[in-house]
């Protein structure tokens, strides 16, 4: 991404802009609620919701939006055959490549987003609309651990999309249907705690919460102590389950895959 600096900066500006609109909308809803609802009746404070929104913008590239374009291309051009011939586990090879691909896109944008929402906004006097620091040191450490797990989980999901793209020989349709699910269930659209109360248990237990929502709850100190360990275990458990599923699906697809000569 560093080669295309203008495009990357343009994308980053769009993400800030988008985050700004979301933050203003949330602030308007919270502003009305402060007058009517008693304090504490809301599942998260405005400051927490705002920080959640900025983190969501920063982690946009972490979400499993679609299959790895390199894998899709390898399948289309037939160079997937080389991957099959290498004396390494094909799943592990693709997994490592996808994880690297995601991390390389996330880290620069996340750093820029912290600089914008965490430093530039408060300096400009808009501190109440800025990115707040983590609850405490323990929360910060456990958040880093959770963010790494989120990367592994996201990669496991990308691998499933890779396999699906391989089976269908085309990634477009699959990506189109994966996107809305990922956007809603990861908490990117709206912080999950703000969705209806009756959905909360199901929302927390589904695998996509581990992409953003659980790391964010840890960051804000909403999950601490044993519940924090539970959150991490949930992320790890889903990652292991999805990796196992991905391996199974991949070996079945690969056995049926026909590479055209030429």
């Amino acid at each position, binding site marked *: 991404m560093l080669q295309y600096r*203008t*495009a990357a900066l*343009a*994308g980053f*500006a*769009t993400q800030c*802009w*988008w985050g*700004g*609109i*979301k933050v*203003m*909308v949330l602030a*308007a*809803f*919270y*502003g*009305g*609620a402060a007058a*009517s*609802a008693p304090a504490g009746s*809301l599942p998260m404070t405005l400051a927490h919701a705002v920080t959640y929104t900025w983190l969501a913008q920063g982690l946009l590239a972490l979400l499993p939006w679609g299959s790895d374009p390199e894998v899709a291309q390898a399948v289309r051009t037939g160079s997937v055959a080389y991957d099959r011939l290498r004396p390494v586990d094909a799943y592990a090879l693709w997994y490592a490549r996808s994880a690297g691909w995601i991390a390389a896109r996330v880290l620069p944008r996340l750093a820029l987003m912290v600089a914008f929402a965490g430093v530039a906004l408060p300096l400009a006097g808009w501190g109440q609309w800025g990115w707040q620091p983590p609850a405490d040191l323990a929360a910060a450490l456990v958040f880093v651990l959770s963010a790494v797990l989120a990367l592994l989980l996201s990669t496991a999901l990308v691998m499933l999309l890779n396999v699906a793209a391989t089976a269908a020989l085309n990634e477009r*349709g699959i990506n*189109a*249907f994966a*996107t*809305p699910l990922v*956007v*809603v269930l990861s908490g990117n*659209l*709206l912080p999950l705690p*703000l*969705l*209806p109360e009756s959905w909360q248990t199901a929302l927390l237990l589904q695998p996509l919460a581990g992409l953003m929502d659980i790391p964010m709850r840890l960051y804000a100190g909403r999950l601490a102590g044993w519940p924090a360990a539970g959150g991490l275990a949930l992320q790890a458990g889903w990652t292991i389950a999805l990796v196992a599923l991905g391996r199974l699906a991949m070996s079945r697809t690969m056995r049926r895959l026909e590479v055209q000569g030429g």
Partner: protein
Amino acid sequence: MGGVALFFRLVLASLKGQALYPTSAVLATLAQFLVTGIEVVAIWALFDRFGTVQGWALGEVALFYGLVNVMFAIADALGRGFDVLGTEFLRTGAFDRLLLRPRTLPLQLMGHDLRMSRLGRLAQGLMVLAYATAQAGIAWTPAHVGLALFAIAGGVALFLGILVLQGTLAFWTVESLEVANMFTYGGVEAGQYPITLYARWFRRLLTFGVPLACVAYYPAVAILGRADPLGAPAWIGWLSPLAGFVFLALSFLAWGHGVRRYTSAGS
């Protein structure tokens, strides 16, 4: 054959091409419907949680949302040629072919690749408009229908103008830049709520810079028969969609400047 006739021919050819793969076209439309529909989930959930926002109810906000999405769906279908100008025309040299044809350039681009899948967003916007009608008790008198159509036409012109500007920018950058998304998709995002929610500088930008408030907010306030919380007189909504056409005209001025500057890569 005039430019307009050519435009319709191009549109027909584009639609026929997509009709050759009906499953693909239907699935793409369905995907558009789902992707654009998830915003509804966020709005609904926020109202479910908070009740109202600054005195606006869900049904009223649905009118803003529906209008903006209908506008953008139509403009997006028409403006795809400008959207992909950098990647599909300038870099490949295909733009030279368009220039050689003795037909209006913008109409050729507007007829380029009119996507059926945009029906997904359109259908979604219309459904939300129906919901708004039922929920906010909108009485669609002939005058109100006329105003809504005028506002939509102004909105289509505005969004098309943004896409034309994006295309114009490509004459300098050769790349189709994501930056225009701030005002296309970002405009849809911002326009789906009443602008009273936003900070003052942002409201001004949406009124005088990219006049989204003129094509969506003020007409919608007039249709709802509400007094504008910002204190604008009631007749504003009946005139303000004109701003969309002015924006489009200015965009084409910039476009003409870009075209004159264009030198082929020679490939």
